[in-house]
């Protein structure tokens, strides 16, 4: 008989386990953002009422309406400042991610370097950034370079640790198969370790991308000619709290936006996990 004459076992087994999300899950996904917005609005209303009813001075805690007013009035200066900070954070994130990834790849291929590389990395990670930032500013000036470096210093470690974990988390059964065909380490890395690590890399990015924004702002506080950090510093030294809060609001919104973008990217890149 022909090998193809076998009964088709596909008929009862083709269902995709995650093809149709349950109605409950769909409802949950609609409800969650609405609940989030309501919570935010509620908090803002409570904050506004609290400030007004207690008569708290604006230079201590400004009301949300005052912050919004400062945001609108200062939009022409906040927008370019946000762009500068965003650019520095992005450059630092790219640099930190690249260095973290490169070190993880090196350690994966040369295990005997692990202790030395990780010790150095831990040293760099453990040094307080608040101490490093002014030093870098003195060395490199008030331009973008120290901000990019500070951001890279903040972001490389999560990427290094997660990438290393990702490269090592290859399914033992897959590892056995590659061993059975005597695949070389580069082939195993390219076809298996690298894709296996993607969920770990995105987890690192979700931590380090918002962290990059903070890194850039901290570095700007130490001395800068532009950026959100400088806007905050100017507002702080002049006790213009609504302007300071407006700058913080922009920074928070940008961090949330960056996180959201990474999450979207993750969903697209890891679509196979939903198969």
């Amino acid at each position, binding site marked *: *008989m*022909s*090998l*193809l004459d*076998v*009964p*088709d*076992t*596909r008929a*009862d*087994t*083709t*269902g*995709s*386990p995650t093809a149709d999300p349950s109605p409950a899950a769909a409802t949950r996904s609609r409800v969650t953002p609405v609940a989030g917005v309501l919570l935010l609005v509620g908090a803002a209303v409570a904050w506004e009422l609290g400030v007004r009813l207690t008569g708290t001075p604006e230079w201590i805690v400004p009301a949300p309406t005052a912050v919004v007013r400062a945001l609108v009035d200062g939009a022409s200066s906040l927008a370019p400042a946000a762009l500068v900070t965003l650019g520095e954070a992005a450059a630092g994130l790219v640099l930190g991610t690249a260095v973290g990834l490169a070190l993880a790849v090196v350690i994966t291929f040369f295990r005997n370097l692990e202790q030395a590389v990780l010790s150095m990395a831990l040293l760099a990670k453990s040094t307080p950034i608040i101490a490093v930032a002014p030093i870098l500013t003195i060395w490199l000036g008030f331009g973008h370079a120290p901000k990019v470096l500070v951001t890279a210093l903040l972001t490389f470690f999560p990427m290094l640790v997660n990438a290393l974990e990702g490269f090592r988390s290859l*399914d033992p*059964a*897959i590892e*056995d*198969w*590659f*061993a*059975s*065909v*005597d*695949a070389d380490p580069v*082939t195993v890395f390219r*076809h*298996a370790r690298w*894709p296996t690590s993607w969920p770990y890399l995105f987890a690192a990015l979700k931590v380090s991308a918002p962290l990059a924004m903070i890194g850039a702002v901290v570095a700007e506080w130490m001395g800068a000619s532009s950026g959100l950090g400088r806007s905050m510093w100017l507002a702080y030294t002049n006790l213009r709290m609504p302007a300071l809060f407006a700058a913080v609001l922009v920074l928070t919104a940008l961090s949330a936006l960056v996180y959201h973008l990474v999450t979207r990217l993750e969903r697209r890149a890891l679509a*196979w*996990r*939903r*198969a």
Partner: protein
Amino acid sequence: MSHPAPPTTAPPPLTLRGVGHDHGRVVALDGIDLDVAAGSFVAVVGPSGCGKSTLLRLVAGLDRPTRGRIAIGDHDPAEVRRAKQVGWLAQRPALLPWATVRDNVALAREIVATPRSAPDLDPLLDLVSLGDFADALPGQLSGGMQQRAALARMLAQDAPLWLMDEPLAALDELTREGLAADLLGIWERLRPTVVWVTHHLTEAVSLADRVVVLGPRPGTVVGDLEVDLPRPRDVTAPAVQDLVREARHLLGSVDEVTVATSDLAPRRVAGAGPGARA
């Protein structure tokens, strides 16, 4: 339809002499002597934890025996593995979940760099009834279909030695029987040397030329049954049942028996066994 060409290298005989293996202080296998003729189909059965999978890993060259010697033809298992002549099919299909079925199979071809006599991928996928699912991701397939994809990947290697570690264990009864029949049909066509580890006595007797019975840890050979019955085999046939009973007796003779529940009572469903339709 097209069929894969026979392996470009002749199927090798397999010789184990005094093979033993320790996992730290635990002796997993001890004093294994075994000869497997070239092109034969040998099933290895035994209770859970008796070292069946360890034995297969040693033959595959994935681990080295602590004692004794294994020869595949005239070569050390590690040499045969380096020559990419070991086909490996485990209980879990171990497909790359981010790659399509076609890409998974193509990867084996790419790594092994099979000679031009090797078949194209499409006939291979048709052979395992996955022609229409070439662009599907493993996660979109059932367990049986994933194992068929893993089988296609193994066939793409064109290896003369197939080592299978309970390849049907994770599948439901119907899928298991269908895939066993397909595997047997492909083996009869290509005639590689096969070592098939299973804990299903009926499956072993219905598929293999010989059934090697291992005792509990440390695993040693406690029986070696020749299955001199024509294929396809009806699992309800008295001759098959006698051999299953004999294998069970051998397992029973070593104090501890852990075999699949379905093997404890003879199956009475006529024509339901793999042998009935191969």
